[in-house]
């Protein structure tokens, strides 16, 4: 344990943070508000280290040790007890002290008089709850249902208890939900058709790979801790191949980098498959035992695919494809890490199926050091007690109404019988993250009431009526698991909530209390419960067995790792209808997709907007979070676009010039950065929300759906990277 830890965590009293001894009752000041009280010197300074966990939407979901001195968060460090976190945090995690104590934090519930006017009035929590409850009941009376209330929540905070927000909505009756996910749906559907569900090996197993292809992923920026295991694998003789449209930071670490034409990844996989078939390098034994439709797939490949075609489609020389295919098929175990950026295209899902097929035909499934890694939800088997709530008695629930989170503006405006009249936004910022933000703004303007729970003022809060101040990770309690590694961590409350901030479960409980006060029985959400009870209700015997523990309190000593199922599909029992790996998937066909992993043409650039604009994640922020912190702004606070020198020359742009990126949807002005890491037909604008600048690359983005996503996540994804623009000097 870190030498600095003066108090062991045992000193942390059971249950919530007990109030410090209150001094003599009489008010010291002879006018009406008591502000000070007597204290003893001993109470002044105490140091403790608390178990925290980073709840962000990130592969690494780190276990954190927070050092708190006299109730002030002094610093954060990675928890060495987790073999994935290894005592390290990324630059974002290390800046948490700047977020907890930022002067920009929203401190009190406030109501905006005139949505978007900028005139805010401070209100008490009780007034906020009353306004919201009255609006809910008014809608219920007017429409006879609570469907006009729409919740838009996603991944700003993936702490299991935060599903209490969905629970709050369920407990008032049927509501409309912004369903689906902008992030990774097409890939999930693809792997659901192929394997039955998404299931990746324990990333710490990467060290056992002898051949690793990182395909359209940039872990150096988005999964920093995984790169340690990639480095370890290279040290043990693994060859690292990176396939990506641009030379990313991860591509710069590759033994072999292959720059592929965006959205043609499936063609490369099929070209490799053809070569492997021609040279009989596939694993016939494994296929016979574990797959379905291999023959049909091989027939398709033999009849329709040639390596020359693949070379032409992808822009990769023929001999390079052949060498890649031979090395991949003959080096065992060979591992493919499929990234999320790669599936954000109109043929994204199908491309993932093509790559899955490549991994299957070479028998690299169910093996340590092998696999087709995408994501996993194995460690998410909680009770979701905070989320699953009964509707009020006397209302027979016909189920929630779903609208597409990825086309939110249009679908809110078009919703009918009943129309949508009220929005609740939590863990999300649609006005910075959604495509067609002007449509989303119109939707906001059409509402009777918009409530946003957030920590900072951003364009979404600016268009809300009521903003509710929420706590940071260190002011609330929760449980965090990852969709990549297999660790489970408890997040203890490190400090008291600042100002009048509350966390989402407390908001749910107190709103329920107000609703029942105004109309008895109108909300079934529990109105009380301390953190220990909330947490313990999330656990079940299966989780205890998976993590080899008897009681969740053991997590107070440190995070725990799953002990079973660390190698995906090792038992060969696939969750497909046939129980086998399905090249041929009737489910895919049922959803209107090709039954086989055939190639689906990629989207071509329109004539007047010839340049493809990629908008990948930035290394110092996660969507709209972190860039607003002072330490991050000190490193970079100038929006820029990466352009190839040849392209820049064509528009006589020099490095540092102000340029405009535009198409029929919108325009963005940025600084030009000339670099050969991109290609002549592609520009790169990293997706960042700068708090003081009116820059949003998504204004140029149409809500074009990706091909898959409906089956597993309820709605198709967005083809973020099929965005075509033109460029001119400003």
């Amino acid at each position, binding site marked *: 344990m870190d030498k600095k830890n003066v108090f062991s965590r045992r000193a942390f009293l059971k249950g919530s943070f007990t109030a410090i001894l209150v001094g003599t009752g009489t008010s010291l000041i002879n006018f009406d508000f008591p502000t000070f009280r007597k204290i003893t010197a001993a109470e002044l300074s105490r140091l403790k280290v608390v178990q925290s966990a980073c709840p962000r939407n990130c592969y690494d979901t780190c276990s954190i040790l927070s050092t708190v001195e006299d109730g002030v968060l002094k610093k954060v460090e990675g928890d060495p007890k987790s073999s994935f976190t*290894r*005592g*390290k945090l990324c630059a974002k995690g290390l800046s948490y002290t700047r977020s907890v104590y930022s002067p920009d934090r929203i401190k009190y519930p406030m109501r905006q008089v005139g949505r978007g006017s900028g005139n805010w009035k401070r209100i008490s929590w009780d007034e906020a709850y009353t306004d919201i409850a009255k609006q809910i009941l008014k809608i219920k009376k007017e429409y006879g249902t609570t469907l006009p209330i729409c919740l838009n929540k996603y991944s700003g905070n993936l702490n299991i208890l935060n599903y209490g927000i969905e629970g709050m909505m369920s407990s008032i009756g049927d509501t409309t939900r912004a369903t689906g996910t902008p992030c990774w749906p097409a890939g999930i559907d693809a792997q659901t058709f192929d394997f039955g569900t998404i299931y990746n090996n324990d990333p710490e197993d990467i060290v056992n790979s002898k051949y690793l292809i990182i395909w359209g992923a940039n872990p150096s920026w988005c999964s920093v801790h995984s790169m340690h295991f990639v*480095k370890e694998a290279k040290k043990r003789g693994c060859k690292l191949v990176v396939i990506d449209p641009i030379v990313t930071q991860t591509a710069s670490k590759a033994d072999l980098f292959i720059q592929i*034409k965006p959205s043609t990844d499936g063609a490369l996989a099929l070209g490799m498959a053809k070569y492997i078939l021609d040279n009989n390098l596939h694993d016939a034994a494994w296929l016979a035992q574990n797959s379905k439709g291999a023959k049909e797939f091989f027939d398709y490949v033999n009849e329709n695919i040639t390596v020359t075609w693949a070379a032409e489609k992808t822009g990769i020389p023929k001999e390079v494809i052949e060498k890649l295919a031979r090395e991949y098929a003959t080096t065992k175990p060979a591992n493919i890490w499929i990234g999320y950026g790669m599936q954000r295209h109109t043929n994204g899902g199908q491309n993932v199926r093509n790559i899955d097929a490549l991994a299957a035909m070479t028998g690299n499934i169910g093996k340590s050091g092998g696999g087709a890694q995408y994501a996993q939800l194995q460690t998410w088997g909680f009770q979701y007690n905070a989320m699953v709530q009964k509707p009020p008695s006397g209302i027979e629930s016909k189920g929630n109404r779903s609208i597409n989170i990825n086309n939110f503006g249009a679908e809110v405006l078009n919703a009918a019988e009943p129309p949508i009249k009220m929005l609740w936004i939590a863990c999300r910022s649609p006005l910075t993250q959604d495509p067609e933000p002007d449509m989303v703004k119109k939707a906001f303007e059409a509402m009777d009431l918009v409530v946003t729970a957030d920590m900072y003022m951003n364009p979404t809060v600016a268009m809300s009526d009521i903003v509710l101040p929420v706590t940071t990770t260190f002011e609330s309690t929760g449980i965090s698991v990852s969709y990549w590694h297999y660790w489970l961590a408890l997040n203890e409350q490190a400090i008291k909530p600042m100002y009048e901030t509350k966390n989402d479960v407390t908001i749910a409980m107190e709103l329920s209390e107000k609703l029942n006060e105004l109309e008895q029985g109108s909300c079934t959400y529990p109105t009380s419960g301390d953190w220990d009870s909330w947490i313990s209700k999330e656990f079940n015997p299966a989780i205890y067995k998976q993590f080899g523990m008897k009681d969740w309190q053991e997590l107070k000593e440190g995070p725990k790792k799953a002990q079973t199922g660390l190698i995906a599909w090792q038992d060969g029992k696939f969750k497909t209808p046939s129980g086998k790996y399905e090249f041929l998937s009737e489910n895919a066909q049922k959803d209107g997709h090709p039954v086989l992993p055939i190639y689906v043409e990629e989207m071509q650039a329109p004539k007047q907007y010839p340049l493809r604009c990629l908008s990948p994640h930035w290394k110092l922020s996660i969507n709209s979070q972190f860039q607003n912190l002072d330490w991050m702004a000190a490193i970079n606070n100038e929006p820029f676009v990466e352009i190839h020198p040849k392209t820049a020359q064509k528009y006589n742009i020099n490095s540092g010039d102000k340029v405009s990126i535009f198409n029929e949807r919108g325009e963005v002005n940025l600084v030009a950065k000339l670099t050969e890491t991109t290609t002549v037909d592609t520009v790169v604008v990293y997706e960042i929300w700068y708090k003081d600048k009116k820059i949003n690359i998504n204004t140029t983005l149409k809500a074009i759906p990706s091909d898959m996503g409906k089956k597993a996540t309820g709605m198709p994804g967005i083809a973020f990277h099929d965005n075509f623009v033109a460029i001119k000097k400003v």
Partner: protein
Amino acid sequence: MAKKLAFLVNCEACIGCHACENACKNEYQQEASVRWRKVYPMQEKSFDVPVRVHVSLACNHCEEPACMKVCPAKAYTKREDGIVIHDNEACIGCKLCMMACPYQVPCYDKNLGKVTKCDMCAARQDDGELPACVKGCPMDALAVIDLQEEKYQKLKASLPGYPKNEITHPTTRFVAATVGKQIRRGEE
């Protein structure tokens, strides 16, 4: 024999993630503008293929520190183990050391009215702990080495774009980044 401590920056392992910068700030909670450690991107033209390579640099704890030489208030001292320490009490905030340092290491903290800089976490090292940046690097790309040892003599003392060593003889040593094979598109 006293050690001769120096930073070893392994650009082969480094992924330019800035965790070292914020690990340092997380330890000492400096102002945003006071950046004791900075991660610099290297020029693409320093390599024969376009790659993203970074160099994380704090104070180089030079053999002949220019800051110590020019400081009128004698605020700088070089410890026996080679660490160049800046004494906040003595400093008068004249900022001459900022002009004299070839690597732009000393930072001016306008709230303190003084210059501050990296002291290789002297206090932490005296307690037997690693400097915050070294401990914080997710790729273990930073280390503190003793230049006296034989095996460190052959290490590179400079990189393309790193200001020339002759001025102050910095002690920072480097492992240069190697670059893999690239099949790039549309170069014809």
